[in-house]
């Protein structure tokens, strides 16, 4: 935005200012260190594994690996110290050990790795000069703690970045760990069912239901950055064909809707109860008992054809006995500017006046945090 035209306060942000402060790291120095730490750590680890697996046969590679592992202790450490804004106090990093701080853990890890790698490299150097020395055995012992340190060096830098409040980086911390929200949700539904009273086919249908809806919610669940899996898909497939792009756009806009299924015998049509839109359900085989029923479904609206894709949460395959309990938290749409807030995902309080017929929305992130 042009500096001269300072944004007028529009009530959505604070004069367009960012909420967070940018990390004051020198990208070149810290980037170099992260690269060198990974390179050295992995080199030490691979050299050790290779030495154990192939012994003398891989002598040359092991030697290079041990020398390569000296990059982080030397050049890498120098980069880190230069990045400090008060470099002459670098030793303050070793005042204490703090498990909540990857930088503290990393400082100690780097010290340990540096010592053990230096010992291994020095022994290697001497062994190369004086062939057949007994020091070779000593190097084979010293390489083990060095390799452990190497393993730590090659992974902790990811923690260093993700244990911050920078949205993109903090979202990546959870990228590899199972998303407990989906699991918790499926379990919650399944625990409500009397499994033994169900026939096998019914049980399979119910399980498929729970899995489908949980998967779907996970895909539409915003990460810390506010982007959903569909948003990321859209970003990564910029060169998609027009039809594909339209589908992705429709997926991004999929929302829960309250539908009423028409009573006609031949055509399966549903009506959005709130807006009154008639929507056609594509590719769904509805059991007869849902005709005339109201159902919550997450629907994908195709703008070009005006046709609704298959409703993604096949709620109607659940046992039509008694009142199906509706988890309010599951059937509220996400919005970054919600009008409801909740502490526990059960009780909801409006945060502002809601217009008549207006949709109630929540921010999934606020109570999703409880589960994570």
């Amino acid at each position, binding site marked *: 935005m042009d500096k001269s035209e300072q944004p*007028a*306060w*529009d*009530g*959505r*942000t*604070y004069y367009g*200012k*960012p*909420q*967070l*402060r*940018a*990390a*004051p790291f020198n990208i070149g120095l810290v980037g170099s260190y992260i690269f060198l730490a990974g390179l050295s750590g992995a080199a030490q680890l691979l050299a050790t594994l290779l030495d154990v697996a192939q012994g003398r046969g891989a002598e040359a590679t092991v030697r290079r690996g041990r020398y390569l592992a000296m990059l982080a202790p030397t050049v890498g450490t120098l980069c880190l110290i230069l*990045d*400090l*804004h*008060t470099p002459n*106090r670098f030793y*303050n*990093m070793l*005042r204490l050990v*703090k*498990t*909540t*701080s*990857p*930088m*503290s*853990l990393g*400082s100690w890890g780097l010290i340990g790795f540096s010592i053990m790698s230096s010992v291994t490299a020095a022994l290697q150097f001497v062994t190369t000069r004086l062939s057949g020395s007994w020091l070779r055995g000593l190097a084979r012992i010293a390489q083990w703690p060095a390799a452990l340190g190497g*393993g730590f060096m*090659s*992974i902790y830098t*990811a*923690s260093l970045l*993700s*244990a*911050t*409040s*920078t949205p993109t*980086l*903090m979202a990546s*911390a*959870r990228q*590899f*760990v199972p998303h407990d929200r989906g699991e918790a949700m499926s379990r919650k539904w399944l625990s409500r069912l009397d499994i033994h009273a169900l026939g096998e086919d019914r049980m399979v249908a119910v399980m498929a239901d729970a899995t489908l809806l949980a998967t779907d919610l996970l895909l539409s669940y915003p990460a*810390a950055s506010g982007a959903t899996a569909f948003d990321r898909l859209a970003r990564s497939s910029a060169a998609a064909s027009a039809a594909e792009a339209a589908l992705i756009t429709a997926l991004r806009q999929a929302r829960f809707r309250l539908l009423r299924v028409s009573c006609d015998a031949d055509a399966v049509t549903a009506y959005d109860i709130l807006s009154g839109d008639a929507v056609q359900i594509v590719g769904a085989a509805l059991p007869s008992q849902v005709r005339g029923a109201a159902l919550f479904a997450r629907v994908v609206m195709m703008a070009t054809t005006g046709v609704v894709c298959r409703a993604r949460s096949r709620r109607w395959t659940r046992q039509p006995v008694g009142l199906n309990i509706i988890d309010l938290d599951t059937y509220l749409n996400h919005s970054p500017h919600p009008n409801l*807030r909740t*502490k526990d995902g059960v009780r909801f309080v*409006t*945060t*502002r*006046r809601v217009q008549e017929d207006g949709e109630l929305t929540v*921010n999934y*992130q*606020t109570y999703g*945090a409880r589960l*994570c």
Partner: protein
Amino acid sequence: MQSIAGTLVIAQEERLQLLIATASDTSSCSATAPPSSPINCRRCCGWLMMSDVCKHCHNAPCLEACPTGALFRTEFDTVVVQQDICNGCGYCVPACPFGVVDISLLDGKAHKCTLCYDRLKGGLEPACAKACPTDSIQFGEVGELQERARRREAELHRRGVTSAYLYGTPGEAGATGGLDHLNAFFLLTAPPETYNLPRAPTRQANRVAPSLAAGLTTLVGLPSQPARCSRGGCNDG
């Protein structure tokens, strides 16, 4: 460290309208506008002030991230940077979910609001609370202030300002993600983003174990690759 506290309530609610009335000459709103119409006022003018006070979180991410121990918790349950220890690594800056702490390029140390640690030591209240002429910033013991804020919130709701809510008290917005509660908390009438506050701040320490576990899993999982490769019959010599 349990009960004592330096704490602030910033009551943005109707002070906002007073500010607006003085700031704008073209506006149709005035200081006498009913308290239930802050939205209308905002549309026409747009003058909002927010204190960039450190929230002195109960579980402070900056303190937890600080590798040198320069950031510490005082006897008043506030969080302060010790300038003689800080080496300017800057790790507290991205750790803070509120964008408060920053590095000074002049002296190379981290700086942030100390809630006037020196004044508190001398038995005085923080300068901001002392100076504020409208009492929008109030200082006291946390528990008592939280009570006062809850009463004020209920009173505003009764008067029709249903948008009023607390930010940073236990279990409310701003006290999410393991922060427990903020020692400087707010009574607001618009969404948190309006005041440049995050909706759901989190503790950076939450992500240490998951990210290390993710790395470890990857590291342990890697050796299975060549095994699969050799079974598949590929030969890289």
